Every structure is written in structure tokens, then in C-alpha cells.
């Protein structure tokens, strides 16, 4: 009898529940987000207003879209440090096409996103075929692309046609369009990464690259595709953000790469690869957005945002590492 009781107790004890919540990053994040929202809601009556919540979601749309691509890369065991620069670059290209070349907005958008995909393809080929480390490749390209932005738009381009601005300004069913772009992209890739036989291979590559290759997975090709997706999504985000701001600014997207990686790791990704979901990356971004919003509502200096978010990241990964150690 006692062993049975122990067994049951072992299963449902508070310790094991906490343990399993912390180890499942998605549950952990949901819990944090709920606690944070409850705290914010009871402290500030403006928090649970429709306007505020819509603003929170709108603000995370750009980071969420970029983090989808970042998550796919992290699942395969890599990351892309160029996302911020690519975002700025594609915005600049779109603005240039519209302002200097007088192109139709849809053509400008197409060229801008394609340029993002091309940078991704270049990154992917150098990393996967030539064998340059992805971190070093990212560091180099981050600087190169940022420099090119300055060369082509100088201090920025502020005259953009209204049709282009509508990309961001329009609403559908009461929500601003960027929210819809985010929802469609996140749902599509969440589904693909879960169910599609092509995307599923990224988990195998991240789990064991050599074994994946011996299983007949064309690892270099898969890697190139993942960098192209990341470049393309950064490109889409760049167009949306440029339209939202009604201007192309040379500093657009600086620091995005680290923010995006932080969100994904919070959401359950591992730098070693093999883990992570799009839901996780979204929750990571949402959590960071909520903290940001809370800082603004409570008029706390914005520098606290990075301290709080990074601090929670540090605590989460430390507890995770300690739990893994104690298991062995």
C-alpha cells in the first residue's frame, strides 16, 4: 500500500508539477504570461482595454514574423544574425523602388521580399555548401548589409505613396493588417513544422546532422532553404514595418536578431538544435511584448525591459540546466 501511495504522491506532488511546467517551456511561458497579465490587469485598469491589447499584439507582429524564420533555423541547429539588417535592407529597397524609380507598390514589395530571399540564399550557400560557421557568416553579413543600407538611402526616405502605406494601415475584421499577416504566417509555418514531411526534417537535422545525412536527407539543401525562409520573412517584416512607419530609416531593425533569438530560446528552442515550435517562438515574443507594454503603462524606464526579459531567460535556462543535471 505504502509504495502505491508513494507512487501516486510522486506523480502529483507539487514538486513534480512545478518541475514539468518549468521543463516544458511552452507551459512555463503561458503561466508567466497569465501571471503577468493578471498582475497588470489588477494594477492598471487601462491594461485590459481593447485598445491596449490590440496595441500589444500590433507591436509584436514584426518580431513574431521574423521569429518564425529564426525558430525554423534554431530547430535545425543554427540561427541567422542578419535578420535585423535584412529587415532594414528590404525596407530600404522597397522605399527606393517607390520613391526613386516610381514603381507600382506591388512590384516594389515583390522586389523587396525577393531581395531578402536572395540574401538568405547567399547566407545559406556559404554556410551549408562552403562550410563557413553560421555565427561568423551572420556577423559578417549583418555589418555588410547594414552598410549597404546607409549607402543606398543615406539618412532615409520619407516620401512613400499612400497605396504602400495601406499595407500596414488597413484593417480587417477590426484588426490592423500586420496582425493578420502575423497570424497567417505563424499558423502556416506552425502547421508545416508540425505536420509536413519536408519541414519535419529540420528536427532530424537538429537532432543529429550526421544521422540525418545517412538517412538520405539532403542537409545542405535543407539548410539553404531555411536561410531563404528566414531572409524572406525578414523581408516581409521589413516591408510591413516600413509601411507602418511611413519611412525607411537606416537603423531599422537593429538589435532584432538578439531579441528574436531570445524569444525563441524562451519559447523552448535550444542552440544545439532539435527542439522548438512556432507556438513557442510566438509566446516568447508575446511575453517580451507584454513586459514592454507593462513598462510603458507603469511609466518605468524602458531599460528595465531588457533587464526583466533577459533575467527571466537566464533564470529559465539555469533552472533547466540544473534539473537536467539532477536527473543524471
Amino acid at each position, binding site marked *: 500500500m505504502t509504495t502505491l501511495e508513494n507512487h501516486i504522491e510522486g506523480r502529483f506532488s507539487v514538486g513534480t508539477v512545478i518541475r514539468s511546467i518549468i521543463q516544458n517551456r511552452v507551459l512555463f511561458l503561458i503561466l508567466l504570461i497569465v501571471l503577468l497579465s493578471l498582475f497588470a490587469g489588477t494594477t492598471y485598469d487601462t491594461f485590459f482595454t481593447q485598445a491596449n491589447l490590440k496595441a500589444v499584439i500590433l507591436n509584436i507582429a514584426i518580431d513574431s514574423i521574423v521569429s518564425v524564420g529564426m525558430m525554423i533555423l534554431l530547430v535545425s541547429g543554427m540561427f541567422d544574425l542578419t535578420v535585423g539588417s535584412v529587415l532594414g535592407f528590404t525596407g530600404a529597397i522597397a522605399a527606393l523602388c517607390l520613391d526613386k524609380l516610381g514603381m507600382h507598390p506591388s512590384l516594389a514589395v515583390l522586389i523587396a521580399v525577393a531581395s531578402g530571399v536572395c540574401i538568405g540564399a547567399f547566407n545559406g550557400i556559404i554556410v551549408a555548401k562552403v562550410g563557413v560557421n553560421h555565427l561568423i557568416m551572420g556577423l559578417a553579413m549583418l555589418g555588410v548589409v547594414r552598410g549597404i543600407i546607409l549607402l543606398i538611402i543615406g539618412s532615409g526616405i520619407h516620401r512613400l505613396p499612400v497605396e504602400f502605406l495601406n499595407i500596414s494601415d488597413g484593417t480587417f475584421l477590426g484588426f490592423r493588417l500586420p496582425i493578420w499577416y502575423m497570424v497567417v504566417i505563424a499558423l502556416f509555418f506552425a502547421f508545416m513544422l508540425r*505536420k*509536413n*514531411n*519536408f519541414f*519535419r*526534417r529540420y*528536427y*532530424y537535422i537538429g*537532432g*543529429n546532422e*550526421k*544521422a*540525418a*545525412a*545517412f*538517412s*538520405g*536527407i*539532403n542537409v545542405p539543401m535543407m539548410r539553404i532553404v531555411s536561410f531563404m525562409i528566414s531572409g524572406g520573412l525578414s523581408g516581409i517584416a521589413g516591408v510591413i514595418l516600413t509601411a507602418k512607419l511611413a519611412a525607411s530609416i537606416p537603423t531599422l531593425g537593429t538589435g532584432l536578431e538578439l531579441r528574436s533569438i531570445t524569444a525563441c530560446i524562451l519559447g523552448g528552442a535550444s542552440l544545439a538544435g*532539435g527542439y522548438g515550435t512556432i507556438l513557442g517562438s510566438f509566446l516568447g515574443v508575446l511575453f517580451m511584448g507584454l513586459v514592454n507594454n507593462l513598462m510603458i503603462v507603469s511609466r518605468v524606464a524602458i531599460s528595465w525591459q531588457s533587464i526583466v526579459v533577459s533575467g527571466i531567460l537566464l533564470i529559465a535556462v539555469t533552472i533547466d540546466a540544473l534539473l537536467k543535471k539532477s536527473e543524471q
Partner: protein
Amino acid sequence: MGKQSYIVFQGITKTFPGVKALDDVSFSISAGEVHAIVGENGAGKSTLINVVAGNYHPDSGQLEIKGKQEKIRNYAEALDMGISVVYQERSLVPNLSVAENIFADRQPRTFCGFINKKKMYAESEKICESIKLDVRPNTLVGNLIPAKQQMVEIAKALSNDSELLILDEPTATITENETEILFRVIKELKRKGISIIYISHRLQEIFNIADRVTVLKDGKYVGTRVISEVKVGDVIRMMVGRDIYAEKYRSSLKEEKVLEVRNFSSKKFHDVSFELKHGEVLCFAGLAGAGRSEVARAVIGADPLEEGEIYIHGTRKRIANPEQAIENGIGYLPEDRKEQGLFLEMAISKNIVSGNLDSVSKNQIINEKEVQRVSEEYREKLRIICPSVTTKVKQLSGGNQQKIVFAKWLLANPEILIVDEPTRGIDVGAKAEIYRIIRELASQGTSIIVISSDLPEVLTLSDRIIVMYNGTITGELTRHEATEENIMHLASGFERKEEMMV
């Protein structure tokens, strides 16, 4: 023994989960002798070295060094007692100089605490001179030929005032000409009264350089012989002759040629040609490092090839990577299943379908129910023992892990399957099941290449045996001609019968 013993092993036993790596081993090594230790893979040679080096602690038994009982707790203590090991994997830093490598852990210092380069160079020169090694102390190790790197490794060990030097497969990575240089150094050391334990698969070398040879088999001591009083054949007979699995399988091969490899050459092997028939089990026997895995990897396009052609059903094919190999119906089960075959952190079911995701997908969408069904099917078929198919692979035993790799390839169902060391590190019961799976596959028409260093396994499984030594094929035997002795002769580099009689 007229000479005084330097080290005496008394009843050394060391058990690992599931294996008795050393079982009551007793013998002695005299001062100033070159003492070879031989045995098949898994005979216990490495475990013995690790016991002497203090890396493993024996479960029972004693070590006596220079007449005194000693306990060696770690490698630092072994070094203090004058025991140094030169391992197979070189521990040198290629972009540092010879002197810096020799004094890696204890560079001489000046009085203000900086490295005393002058003294370091002078002492390195002295050590190198003492073993007649002509390298300048400021040369970068990476610029030396492999044999001289090996010498530097020995110099490093000697700089520690060693009295016993253990050389683990010292010639595995150097050419035959370079071996001469090594042997000169060994003779010099012997003259100085240093004892040497020489571990090698290559019997030829042992008959060249050793004074005595000790044979281990399955962790047990078989005997020690004076080299000048024995023949190669005697030593081989001591090494082999284990119980062979009683079960012999009926051949299922047909005359139709499925695969033909012509004149394969690369840096690791030379002019390798063979063919494989429908439903045949062809074993590649040989010692570790003979180039068998390298040939297999070249066949599937995982390693570069300098020359050679490959034909499947008589048509010439180009295979540039494993994906193309699978498209051409060739599957490969790698030697190191944990490193190259499995996704340890992933569920059993996900591993099983990893080689053929398309077969469990409909319209590009993976059908989880189908994944589950297929996994359960193979779990039953191959008797994989696990709590459930969602268990992570890393939690299973070696035998069950290997069955999962087999399940994966059964699902992918290639026409040709290359299996590299299918039963390494697997217990006897699981071994028999793996054999059954391989033979069953062959009887269903799959053509199989098995690379194995386990002689009884080769004799049990094969229709035909190809033996490799040092990157070339030294012989081919049918299952009727093959015995452990004649395979071992070929695998040790003796090509003709006459040489066997030496």
C-alpha cells in the same frame, strides 16, 4: 625469466555492465623488454592499458611494480611512477612547436615566472637526441610527417623519465616506411632499459620488434610466448578459436549481379573491386583501420573518391551523397550508431520513420497514426523492448537501439544494405536476433554487405568473405573455405600461404 620483472599483473579483473572486460589476468613484463599484447577487438587490450594508466580501477587483483604492490588511482600517479601511455589518438597541438608540445604541462620557467624558452629548447633537443629523432625544437608539430609526430609523442612521454612506455597501435596512422623510424627509436629505448608494452593488430610488426607476446581473448589471459620460439600461426591460433554460434543459415543468393564496384581508390584505400549478388550476404573482414568502412562510405557517396566506377544492375551510376545512394537503392547502417545512426533525443517512432518520411505521409502531410502503426509493427517484428514507441531512444540498451536502426532501414527497404559493425557493443542474445534479421532480409532478396571485425560473426553470417588489410583487398574466401585462421592471416597482411609458415 632471468631478468627482473618491472610490472606484474596478478589476477586483474574488471567488469563493465554486461561484460567482463578483464577476467583474472596474470602475467609480467620484464625490465627493458618489448612486450607485445595481441588479441581480437574486444579482447581486453585497451582495458588493460587503462588499468595500468590508472584510468580504470580493477575490481580485484593486484599490480606489482618493481616488486612493490601499488595502487594507481589516476594517470598523474601513473606518470609519477614512471608509466607513460602514447595513445592512438595523438594528443599533440599541431600549431605549437615540438618543444612546447613536449613540455605541454610543465614548461620550464624563468625566475619571474615566464616560460624559459632557452631551457625548454635545450632540454627538448636533449630528449630528441636521446631517441635519435632529428627534429628542431622550434618546428611546428603540424609540419612534421605522421611518424615524426608519433616520435614527438614518445619524446613527450619520455620527458617524464618513464620506465614503462605503453604504445597503443603506434603504427595505425603511419606508413610502412615510417615504421622503420619508429622501430629504430624503440630499439634505442630498449637499450636504455625502458620496458615497452606494444599493442598492435599487425602481427608482422610484432614479430619484427617484440621480445615476447601475450595473447588475450575475451578478457582472459591465453598465454605468453617468446617471439623467437613461436610461429605466426601459433599466435593466431591462440587469438581465435572461440565458440562459434551453432546456427548456420541457408544461403539465399542468386547469380544475378546487383552491385559492382570497380577499381575504387581514395586516400584511405587502393584499387578495391568487388561484386554483390542478389540475396547475398557479403562480409568484409579485417582489422580496425583496414579501410572497410571507408570503402562503404565511398560507395554511398559520403566520402570522396579519387577513382573508380560503380554499377547497379549493370548500369553505371554516379552517387555523390547518401540521398542519391538511397535513390539508387543503397542503404547504410553506420558503424557508430549513436553518433551517426540515431536521433537519441527523439522518440523511437520518429527514429523508425526517419529514413522514409514519405511512406508515412499523404499529400506531404505526415500521418501520425500511420507513424504509430508502423512503429508498433516493427517493435513487434524485431522484438524491440521498450515501454512505448514514444520513449526516447537514448533510454534504450545498445541492442534495442541497433534494432531501431534496422527497423528504419527495413521501412526504407533498399535493395542493397551496407551494415557496418552491426553487433558492436551488443550482448549475445541481441546479437543472435540481429543475425536473424540480416539473414531474413537476405532471404527476401536484399543484397547485404556486412562489415565486421568479429570473426565468428563473419563465419556465421556470410555467403562470401572479402578480407582487407591496409586499404587493399588481400583475399576472398567462400564460406566453405573460410576459417578463423585463414581470415586472420589475410587480415594481418600475409597474402600467400608460404608466408604463413614463417
